[in-house]
């Protein structure tokens, strides 16, 4: 659309998209002020501007204390999953890969199941919320097992062995989770709700919890986008071009995994975003990682913020799981793009 040399325009477009999503995200909800008053109030709060918008302090509290953390967390989760997905796809040269590939989702699911099985009562005196913490630790541990096994069997050269090791470790972990669930049927409902993913309980605490991981992970991934472009010619040729393939891949996988594990532990398993947003970006803006990585971050953030809006409105006051919404909106849009543009592998 903007040609090869116009990265800045693309990034500006991405920024505008995120901003648009944030304004929509904090304006619409089941309670609070009329939706069109919120943008007005935002303008009103700019310096040197003062007029009457009809938004009371109580209304503003809903916008700022309930919707804003949810929007920010949605942005962090969506952006993180998308940039991690794009990086995984690049590092394994496999378009079907998502950030849960090496087991972060399965591990987090097992961890959350164990935490919920121990029970809210038993852990109510703990200083930290055990569900995200244990989910996070299990996510990292599972990916570590996958990587160790994959590297030991396949030599660090082979990305394929790693992917297959991931498949095996994920089924093993899921089997353990199923076994625990089957012996503790009373938590199935709660576990299932967690697995479907939700931003509805988001508060500023969750935001502060994940921000450091997301920030570090994102910066590391963005710094490696040129390496991901070199990976596109294959491990062997990347090596002849002076890239230390195994080490660089490990750094990228670790960065993507840390960020993914952190967001999964607060939001549950939100599917589809990490797989499809990078592809949408490729189709629209081209396949070079120099552009795909920042645009996936922004596109994923905006996409998840927007996807969260119908989630709170469709069946209000009940919540529709965001994973359901992402697939509902995302899949047809993806198919539309697939029809109109050629897909880049």
């Amino acid at each position, binding site marked *: 659309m903007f040609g*090869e040399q116009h990265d800045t325009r693309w990034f500006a477009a991405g920024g505008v998209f995120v901003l648009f999503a944030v304004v929509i995200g904090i304006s619409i909800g089941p309670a609070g002020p009329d939706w069109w008053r919120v943008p007005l109030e935002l303008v009103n709060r700019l310096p040197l501007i003062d007029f009457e918008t009809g938004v009371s302090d109580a209304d503003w509290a809903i916008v700022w204390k309930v919707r804003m953390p949810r929007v920010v967390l949605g942005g962090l989760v969506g952006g993180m999953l998308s940039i991690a997905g794009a990086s995984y796809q690049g590092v394994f040269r496999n378009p079907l890969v998502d950030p849960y590939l090496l087991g972060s989702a399965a591990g987090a699911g097992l961890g959350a199941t164990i935490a919920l099985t121990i029970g809210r009562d038993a852990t109510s005196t703990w200083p930290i919320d055990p569900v995200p913490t244990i989910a996070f630790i299990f996510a990292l541990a599972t990916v570590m097992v996958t990587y160790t096994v994959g590297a030991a069997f396949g030599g660090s050269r082979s990305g394929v062995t790693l992917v297959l090791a991931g498949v095996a470790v994920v089924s093993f972990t899921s089997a353990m989770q199923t076994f625990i669930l089957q012996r503790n049927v009373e938590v199935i409902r709660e576990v299932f709700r967690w697995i479907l993913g939700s931003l509805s309980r988001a508060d500023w605490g969750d935001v502060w919890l994940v921000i450091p991981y997301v920030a570090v992970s994102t910066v590391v991934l963005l710094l490696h986008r040129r390496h991901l472009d*070199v990976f*596109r010619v*294959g491990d062997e040729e990347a090596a*002849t*071009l*002076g*890239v230390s393939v195994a080490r660089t891949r490990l750094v990228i996988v670790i960065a993507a995994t840390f960020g993914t594990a952190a967001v999964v532990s607060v939001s549950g398993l939100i599917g589809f975003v990490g797989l499809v947003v990078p592809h949408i970006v490729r189709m629209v803006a081209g*396949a070079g990682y120099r552009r795909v990585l920042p645009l996936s971050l922004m596109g994923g953030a905006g996409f998840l913020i927007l996807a969260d809006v119908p989630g709170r409105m469709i069946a209000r006051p009940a919540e529709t799981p965001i994973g359901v919404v992402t697939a509902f909106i995302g899949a047809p849009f993806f198919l539309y793009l697939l029809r109109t543009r050629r897909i880049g*592998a």
Partner: protein
Amino acid sequence: MSTLTLVDVGVKYSRRAASALTGHSDTVVSGEWLGLIGPNGAGKSSLLKAIVGLVGHTGEILMDGVALSSMSDRERAGRVAYVSQDPLIPDDMTAREYALLGRTPYIGYFGSPSRRDRMIVDDVLERLRLGEFAHRMMGKLSGGERQRIVLARALAQQAPILLLDEPTSALDIGYQQQALELVAELRQTQQLTVISALHDLTLAGTYTDRLTMLHHGAVVVSGSAEDVLTAERLGEIYHVCVTVEHDEGQVIVVPRRGFPA
């Protein structure tokens, strides 16, 4: 400036596998074009991969007296460029972006290509008469054009040693000749040392300074095309029935009907 010395080089892919290459010693002097010939599985690719560090090896590979194995990946990439037999080429990458990957060894870990890197790439594309393709997608180019872009990438690497693994096997006879003429010209102007594995024996003899024939991972003979390409030897090594003709200093290998004696 870039003499390559091989001392007793061996390659083994796994402990139980037979050696792909055994005890290979040779010196390729600066500016020489060495052709590697031999039947499939003779060890040509293994030798090239050992030099560029893609497979481990025993013995020593020295460039101007310095062991390549003692260099970092980046240092080595600045000295040896490699074009694989079957390069993986992303369809949705422009020719210029692809050629720019050749500058990778000169870009800092967190850096990005400089104006100078882009100038070098544009210059190489221009010299190979590929300027018109610079902004076309690789997937939209013909096999011959892609092959030339791959070569452009290797040249943008500005390494004094160029390794080519069957660079022309996918090309028709016209493009084969163009590609080899190009290498010959560049070798002259850039003072490159070239080592290439080649299938076509006549072309191999015509373009290179010296041929080394490998068989079962060992050298059969090394020398001028006239010495190496004899009908008896080709019959014995390739199990093929050929006659060898000589025409104005060119050695021509002609396949004949029948089974070798």
